[in-house]
Each structure stands twice: as structure tokens, then as C-alpha cells.
């Protein structure tokens, strides 16, 4: 009774307080009839009102009786992931990322496809989550922990499981690749910098090849093996549905001083123009010299 009153008072406050920022986790689709073996899509959203946030970090703890099938970052509000959401052994998904320019509204952080392994009440928790105000000072705000649960029943012999099917035939967004040489990155060696988004299933991985070697799985910033950067470089972005976008960096034609790389064609063009200008000036000057010497003589 004593604690009941306390809980009631807290409940009243929790109803009337709109926290500065909240997360929401909810299964999509109208049905609430979940069976063992179903593939259920959960939306994990950031919910804010009148305050813009530009960075988030935290983790999701998923009931051990769920199998995490897929993490979909395709519709995410996150511009760049510092810690890409990925599955750990103990069904914990850690994540951290930034939203360039800030975000105010309700937007997807990522979606999860989960499959119940057992019947009963299965839960998902958010834990130790923070958002950062888009105020230029990195003001850190704690987000209240959240718990969502669904009731799962056994699959009857005549029933079939619901399967999640994401139709994504679109390649990741086009992107640029930069060669960078900075003393604060990989001991001042040449690195590749790249990032893109995919509006469907989300970016699964990047692959790079230098010259005619095979593509290998990498992440940005990527330390170039060939520090002479005299070979063609290809960067491939692959989404979770297997769609690819390949971007070519013709490093062979790049000329780099400090951390600035210029296409060699442009350098040749500048040198050619400079040479022609020099020739014209020299010709004019030699003509005027001739005239002066003729006048004197």
C-alpha cells in the first residue's frame, strides 16, 4: 500500500512529464498475434519535441528468447555511425552516431528483425542511453530507460510463420572518396575516407581494391596499402539486400601535397597555360627590346 501510493505519484509525474528526448520501440504491422518462428520488424525511434539533438549513444538489450535476424539502418536519421549497430553474442546492440545539423521530431534510429524462439512474454530494454543537444556545447541528456514486451504463442500445426521481406533493389547513394594524409590519422600515412547511405536496407559493408587485387572488406578511414597511390582504387558500398555501388578513385592521376590532392590533368593544364602566358609575355618583351635597341641604334 505504502509503495503503491509512491508508484502512483511517480506514475502521475511520468505521465505529465514529457522528457527532453525519448526512445520508442514498437513492432510494426497491425497484428498483435505473434508466433514462435515469426519474423517481426521492430522500429526503434528517437522522439523529441522542440529540442534539436545531434548525437546519440546507448544500447538495446534483447530477450535471449529472440533471435536477432537483421538490423536495418536504411531509414535511419543518423548521418554517420561512430559505432555501427551490430549484434553481440549476448543479444545486446550497442550504437553511437551523429546527426549532422541536428534533428527534432520522431525519426527511426534503426529497425530490428527479431524471431521468437520460445512462447511467452519477450522483452526488449533500452539501457544507458544518452542524447546530445545540438547547441555547440555537447550538452549530454540522459534518456529514460524503456521496456517493450510482446506476447508470443506456439505455432499451431496448420499455421505458417510470417516472414519479413524487405524489397530493396536500389543501390546505395552515390558517394565521393577522398585521399587524405593527416598527421593525426594513421601516423600521417595516406588513407581513404568514404561514407554513404542506403535508403532501403542500409549499408552492410564497404570493400576496397587497389590496382587489380581482389576486393577486401574495410571501414573508413582505410589505410592504403600502396602508399605511392599510383594505382586505380575502387570502393564498393554494399547494402543488406546485396545491392552495390562502386566508386572509382583514379588515384593514379592524383598529385598530393600535404593533405591536398589535385588531379594531375589539372596540374598539366595549369602548367601549359602558364607556359603559354610566359611565351606571350617573353615574345612581347623581346619585341619591345628590339624596338628600343633599333631606336637607340
Amino acid at each position, binding site marked *: 500500500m505504502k509503495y503503491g501510493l509512491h508508484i502512483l505519484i511517480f506514475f502521475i509525474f511520468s505521465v505529465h512529464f514529457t522528457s527532453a528526448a525519448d526512445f520508442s520501440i514498437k513492432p510494426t504491422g497491425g497484428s498483435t498475434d505473434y508466433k514462435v518462428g515469426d519474423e517481426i520488424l521492430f522500429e526503434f525511434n528517437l522522439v523529441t519535441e522542440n529540442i534539436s539533438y545531434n548525437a546519440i549513444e546507448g544500447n538495446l538489450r534483447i530477450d535471449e528468447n529472440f533471435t536477432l535476424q537483421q538490423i536495418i539502418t536504411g531509414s535511419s536519421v543518423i548521418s554517420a555511425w561512430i559505432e555501427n549497430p551490430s549484434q553481440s553474442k549476448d543479444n545486446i546492440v550497442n550504437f553511437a552516431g551523429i*546527426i549532422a*545539423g541536428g534533428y527534432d521530431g520522431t525519426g527511426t534510429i534503426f529497425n530490428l528483425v527479431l524471431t521468437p524462439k520460445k512462447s511467452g512474454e519477450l522483452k526488449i530494454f533500452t539501457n544507458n542511453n544518452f542524447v*546530445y543537444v545540438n547547441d555547440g*556545447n*555537447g550538452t549530454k541528456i540522459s534518456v529514460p530507460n524503456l521496456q517493450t514486451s510482446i506476447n508470443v504463442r506456439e505455432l499451431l500445426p496448420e499455421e505458417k510463420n510470417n516472414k519479413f521481406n524487405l524489397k530493396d533493389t536500389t543501390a546505395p547513394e552515390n558517394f565521393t572518396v577522398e585521399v587524405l594524409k593527416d598527421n593525426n590519422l594513421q601516423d600521417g600515412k595516406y588513407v581513404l*575516407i568514404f561514407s554513404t547511405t542506403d535508403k532501403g536496407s542500409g549499408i552492410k559493408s564497404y570493400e576496397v581494391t587497389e590496382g587489380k587485387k581482389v576486393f577486401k572488406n574495410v571501414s573508413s578511414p582505410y589505410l592504403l596499402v600502396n602508399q605511392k597511390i599510383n594505382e586505380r582504387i575502387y570502393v564498393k558500398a554494399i547494402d543488406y539486400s546485396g545491392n552495390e555501388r562502386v566508386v572509382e578513385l583514379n588515384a593514379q592521376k592524383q598529385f598530393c601535397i600535404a593533405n591536398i590532392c589535385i588531379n594531375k590533368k589539372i596540374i598539366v593544364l595549369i602548367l601549359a597555360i602558364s607556359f603559354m602566358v610566359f611565351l606571350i609575355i617573353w615574345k612581347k618583351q623581346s619585341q619591345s627590346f628590339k624596338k628600343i635597341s633599333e631606336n637607340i641604334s
Partner: protein
Amino acid sequence: MNTEIKKFNIKSVVIIFLLGFLMFFLFQNLNTDSAETSNFTVTIVPAPQCFDGQDNDSDTFTDFPDDPDCSSYTDDSENADSPPPSGGGGGGGGGASGNPPETGITFSGRAYPLSKITILKDGVIAVETISGPDAKFRVSIADLTPGSYNFTVRATSANGVTGTPFSFPVLISQGATTDVTGIFLSPTIDVDKLEVKKGDDIVIFGQSSPESNITIEVNSENQFFVNTESDESGAYIYNFNSAALEYGAHSSRSKANITTGESSGFGAKVAFRVGDLNIAKDPNQVTCRADLNNDLKVNLVDFSIAAFWYNKPLFGDIIIIESNCLNSDGKINLVDFSILAFNWTG
């Protein structure tokens, strides 16, 4: 015993109520410093049914040319009974299908006269244009992949001052045209002194849309609101007397509104101090805020440098860079990334 329990209960209830009010007060007074937004409007012209990516008539066929009931991409009905669109040509000739409608977005609004307008799509520069002498701009992005985007509109005035960017999320649907109108970027703002001698004037100045009514807020124990007007070049200036302000740190921000009723939100704050001296602010002083590689841009390169040192012990030049350009706490964590995201230029 019962009385003790009652006393305990009443005390606890009072404490919980006090805690509750404290929490309420804290949340109400959360000083975010983030800029306000203008009253912009988003209008979406949906795609024709035969190019919206949906099976509208549930016949298992979606859009032109897969759905036999669609005569072209611009046919607005997947239903077999509906007449073909006027001027659609009918007859199923090869050229009758035309081109599919473009999936795009258009932004229009007001910034500063002849300012450079930059639109960032998910943090990447998508398009740039120059506003007119009346500060109005209109710019489009075509060929977008359907999905949710976070767009940022930023303006840099003719004299190189960048105002507070304006970001908003938009869901783009296949074949739909999205029109974002009524964007009104906050005025730029600066002050002539880092410290003003109490009783002297501090000059608050900036740029907005021409002939706008500018409201300047000066934060103090009591907030002060003063009004001035921008001239035909959008420039405004106000001499604020500091006699009414207490000694210590203060800030100011401004917003604009015009006779048509359009108004901007308040922009970011500019800081100054009230003290015993007048210390001029060097207008040419460049800060490296979040620009880790000193290329006057804050983008993926800076993000990569910060990500490389994320949660690692710092050594070498990065210690000085973190101290000068980030929050100077000797480590790179999410706070530094938040500063980077705030200053993001793309």
C-alpha cells in the same frame, strides 16, 4: 506505530512531490541554446498511382509497365475501369509512356541578400545557389531515392558570415514532388566587443532579409528585448547600453519578421561579458571549432579523425587540436562528436 508509518508516508509523499516539481522545473528550464525554427510549410504532390511503387488496385501488379491497367507512368489510376489520362496519348504506342515523374524536392524562402545558400542532404552538400537582392531563394534537388532525409539549409552572407543553419526531416516518396516553402533563416548576429565596460554601449549587428523588423534578445537576470530595422541591404545595427546588465557573462540573439507576417526563429547566441574594461572583438579572428584538419570545413574528414581517436588515449598533435577545437577535456567522446555535428559544414 501507525502514526510513525503515517508520518513516514506523509514525509515521503511530500519529498516525492518536491522531487517531482524539481524535475518538472528542470525540464521546463532546460537551457538548450539550440536555435528555433521558422514556420515553414511542406507540400507533397503525390506520385501518380502508376508510379508510386504500390499495388493500388491489389491485382498483384505494381505501376507502369508491370500493371497492364496503367497506360503510362503519369496515369493516376491502376484501376482498369478508369479512363486514361487526358493527353496521355492512349493506344499503347511505344512513346506514349513518356518519362517517369521525377522524385525531387524544392526549397524556397528568405536568407540574406546575395548570400550563398547551401543545401545539405544527410550532412552532404547536395546543391548551392545564390539568393537574390531581396534575399529570396529557390533551389531544387532531383533524382532522389525514396526514403527519409534530414535536410539542412545554410546561408553565408555576402561578407562571409554564416548564419544559424536550419535542419528538418522529410520523407520522400517515389515520384512525389515535395515543396518546402516559407523557410526564413535567422539573422546573422555579432557584437563589437568581447567585454563591454558597464554603462557603455555594445554594438549588436548582423544581416537579415531587407527591411525586416529585427527583435534582439539580450540575456541577463532579466531578459531585454529591443527592436530595430534592417536596411535595404539587410544590415541591422543596435547600440545596446550595458548599464542595465549585471557584471558577468551575457548573450544575445535575434530574429526577424516582415510585414507579410513571415518570421524567422531566433538564431544562435553570441556571447559577451560586462566588466570594467572595453575589449574589442577581432572580426578577423578565426576559431578552429571542430575543424580538426584546419581546412575551414567540418565534414567527413574531421569525423574520420575524431573517429580514429574515439575513446583512445590521445598523443601527439591531437592533444592540442582537441584542446583548441573541441571541448578541451583531453579525450574524444560523444561530446566532441556533438560539437562536430553542430559545426558541420559538409
